[in-house]
């Protein structure tokens, strides 16, 4: 009995099982949890983390790290709002935001891959630089959105479900496919597994890493736009600490910090577990200060589980 339980929990799908159990428990125990409205609210709340986690998964899978995501999200949001206001065209604003995100990501990638600077240090630096740019551009103040159509990005619904959730679902699908079914995805995992062997096997390691960071920037741009639309302004202080939530969600989802191991389903579950925990605590009126502790504990438990799983795999 215990052996079987162990097998399930430590197996490939262990996390999904834990998630389902947690979901069932929370549904049964927390009032108002399992309602349409709350479910949509929950999903809305994980949109930013979820979107960024898609590409953070690639970053971690390739043994890299990106701390600059929070800053890029805020910066891209600012750019989207300011460019839309200046040009009068929302489309131009959105493109400008995504281009800025891509540019920062590209710079990260080039510095890390070509100049061989540690990813942690590089993105720590760009995190500050980009946050600084966002603050300078707005003089430290929130910038309001002129065109009401911009709000519609976050407010509009398709089949009763808000657009941002559709975007999140779409990105989950796209990046799940990219990870498992494309040369790029497989190369990413190979680089994380053994960078030198991958290079000697003909993988263009530098180019792949630059692409990973550039994609990360693009995705942060998208997240920044949706966030700005939801909070109806460009906030230079938005998404502070986002990088930690995103990395937590990925690790929770079984992405190995040592590289080489990642699944989209795992990351989705990781994102949802974080969302559910927060949502349930809000519904139970647990003060925000305590929520930090709960989040930390969940993360530690997840890593512990991951450790047990790796050693169980290694023993096979």
């Amino acid at each position: 009995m215990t052996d079987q339980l162990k097998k399930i929990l430590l197996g490939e799908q262990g996390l999904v099982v834990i998630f389902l159990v947690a979901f069932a428990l929370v549904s049964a125990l927390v009032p108002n949890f399992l309602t349409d409205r709350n479910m949509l609210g929950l999903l809305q709340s994980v949109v930013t983390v979820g979107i960024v986690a898609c590409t953070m998964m690639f970053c971690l899978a390739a043994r890299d790290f990106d701390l600059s995501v929070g800053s890029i999200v805020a910066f891209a949001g600012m750019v989207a709002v300011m460019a839309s206001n200046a040009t009068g065209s929302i489309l131009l604003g959105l493109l400008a935001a995504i281009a800025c995100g891509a540019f920062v990501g590209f710079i990260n990638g080039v510095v890390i891959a070509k100049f061989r600077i540690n990813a942690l240090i590089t993105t720590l630096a760009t995190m500050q630089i980009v946050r600084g740019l966002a603050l300078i551009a707005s003089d430290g103040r929130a910038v309001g959105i002129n065109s009401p159509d911009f709000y519609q990005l976050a407010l509009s619904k398709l089949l009763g479900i808000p657009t941002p959730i559709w975007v999140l679902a779409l990105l989950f699908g796209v990046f799940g496919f990219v990870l498992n079914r494309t040369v790029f995805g497989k190369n990413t995992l190979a680089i994380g597994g053994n960078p030198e062997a991958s290079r000697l096997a003909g993988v263009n390691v530098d180019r792949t890493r630059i692409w990973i960071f550039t994609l990360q920037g693009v995705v942060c741009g998208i997240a920044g736009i949706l966030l700005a639309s939801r909070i109806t302004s460009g906030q230079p202080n938005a998404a502070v600490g986002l990088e930690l939530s995103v990395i937590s969600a990925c690790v929770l989802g079984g992405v190995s910090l040592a590289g080489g191991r990642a699944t989209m389903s795992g990351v989705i579950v990781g994102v949802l577990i974080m969302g559910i925990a927060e949502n349930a605590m809000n519904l139970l009126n647990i003060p925000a200060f305590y929520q930090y502790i709960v989040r930390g504990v969940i993360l530690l438990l997840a890593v512990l589980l991951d450790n047990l799983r790796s050693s169980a795999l290694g023993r096979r």
Partner: protein
Amino acid sequence: MSFLEFSHITKTYPGVKALSDVSFGVDKGAVHGLMGENGAGKSTLIKILSGDQHADEGEIRIDGKVQAYASTRDAFDNGVIVIHQELQLVPELTIAENLSLGRFPASAGIIAGRRMLDDVGAKLKSAGIDIDMRRKVKTLSIGERQMVEIAKAIMLDARVIALDEPTSSLSSRESEILFALIDRLRGEGKVIIYVSHRLDEVFRLCDSLTVLRDGKLAAHHVSLKGVTRDQVVAEMVGREISDIWGFRPRQAGEVRLKVDSVSGAKLRAPASFESKAGEIVGFFGLIGAGRSELMRLVFGADSRSSGTIKVDGKMVRATDPHDAIRAGIVLCSEDRKHDGIIQGRSIEENINISSRRHHARFGVLNRASEIATAETFIKKLKVRTPSRRQDIINLSGGNQQKVILGRWLSEQGVRVLIVDEPTRGIDVGAKSEIYELLYQLAEDGMAIVVVSSELPEVMGICDRILVMCGGRISAELVRDQFAEKAILAAALPDTKTPDAIAS
């Protein structure tokens, strides 16, 4: 009753019976050989001895006492030490520190440096190991690291020392030092389990021998008197192998690879050689002679500072391996673990890593064709595995090597195949398979370059041998001229040789 007794050891992994009812004993003061093909169960047996794995049935007794180890640390404390192929030293610490690790002579937490050096120095001296203890391990060659590892076992006063393929990365001089050391340990009454694929060494060193085959005891020789090599090989593979090289003469064609005055940071003197279609060229030399360094330059793994490389007359601008691969040059590295396998990923992915771009359209993979490729090469190269989804780390060395060969064979348009130490750590049966494969590829018109530290191997399978010494090509011999003496003479550095290799 022997000092060390294995009794009815059985171990089953999911899908495979790794060991079944293996029993034998080893006396004190004996060097006991343990031989068998890859997957025969040697490693499993050693892992059980070292407490890393637990037997499903059976027990190990030392001095009549049943040993039950919870961990390798536990085995360690009971005087059982296993020296693995993958060495376990801390690169950033000095030799002395590595040897004292866990038992630093210290007062109030401050290491008594002088005393540490004295203690370690005394031990090393008595073991006949001559090396500067203050050097960091990362500056040592693989051979020197191995010696340090063995010195560690001596420091710990081990009762049972198991050596797993100890000479696979040693030069012949280093091997000699090792053998002298083993002799000394035998004299001290230790039990030594010597796992090796090399018959020469086993016959030279061992007092007794156990041969495993498919997890079962194939033979146990209490003494090696009157036992012949052919007999042992037959016991290992279960059939007679008359000639492990199986050399077949071939017709050499046009020049495929032309390397002209190539040099780099680790190979200062420019080197030139060529290799023809259908020809197997061997590179022989001592460890550090510059053979692997030259091959890495040809493959673009390290950057060239001068020289040109042509394949079929066409210039190759190999500044990175992927350029070389597109030009038709591929390399199987010497260090499989570090430069070859992608740990944590499946056999399938390890095979397809390079060639998958051919299965993709706009970067999207064709799964069916990837799976088919993997299955084809698993079958063709006889990779022993329950499934293509198996993590490559779980395969034996020989099977990992086959997967890496499969990686390159699945590439399209390979013209030059360079294999660095093709059979290191690989048993006789798999060796023959790999040689046969090389002959076939040569017959199909590939130019094959084999780098090897085993003289019988290069002499056995090559059409031509280039000898390297001190970073230069010092001799070239065609098959009729092959003679051990001449080759060795060219490989040994004399005093006049300038130091062309960066240290």
